[in-house]
């Protein structure tokens, strides 16, 4: 069974992204939402963290949250897919369960 993990906090502020990545089994998907989208950006002190996760996980970022924060799709780490709320729903449909890392 495959899992979708959501992370909604900045990796600069909290340990949730690190904790999520430490517990996400290979093949599970990760979606960054709200302040979690900062974790998807290229060129930050935490970019390597997420880049490393791309080997074992499909990683997504919520576009509306990205744009709200003044970031565009081309600032996202290569290999991370941008989705909208409909895409978020599709991801929850595709994966049997969702774990929110709050």
């Amino acid at each position, binding site marked *: 069974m495959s899992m979708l993990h959501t992370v909604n906090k900045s990796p600069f502020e909290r340990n949730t992204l690190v904790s999520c990545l*430490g*517990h996400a*089994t290979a093949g*599970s998907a990760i979606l960054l939402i709200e302040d979690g989208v900062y974790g998807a950006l290229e060129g930050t002190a935490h970019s390597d963290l997420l880049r490393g996760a791309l080997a074992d996980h499909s990683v997504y970022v919520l576009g509306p949250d990205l744009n709200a924060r003044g970031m565009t799709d081309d600032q996202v780490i290569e290999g991370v897919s941008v989705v909208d709320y409909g895409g978020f729903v599709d991801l929850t449909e595709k994966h049997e*369960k969702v*774990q*929110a890392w*709050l």
Partner: protein
Amino acid sequence: MSEPWEEEGPGTVKKFMYVNRKAPYGTIYALESLEVVLIAAAFEQDVSMAFLDDGVYQLKKGQDTKGIGQKNFSPTYRALEGYDVEKLYVEAESLAERGLSEDDLLVPVEVMSREALAELMNEQEVILSF
């Protein structure tokens, strides 16, 4: 002996996991999560609780809340067994980082590695986090 609801076939009994990652008292999540688990017990589901990150602090022995004016709800963890909530999983790495061992905890638990806990999470059908 199997219980009647276990024979009702798939869909009736689901694997519920309550994920506890937050320390007690600083926020209400630990207490209100426990209130959910107590109610959930009546629904005869396959319930487990996971304690990881600062959530392991919820189970620390010797909590004394007189000084902060809040109720000490930690004895409730001991009452869980009476509600047939017996699967309490605690992450070994989270304990170690905090200098805690199983002896520091106020209830019997199953300590397991991060990897094993991750696998267990993967087997759940409903994961509730607060």
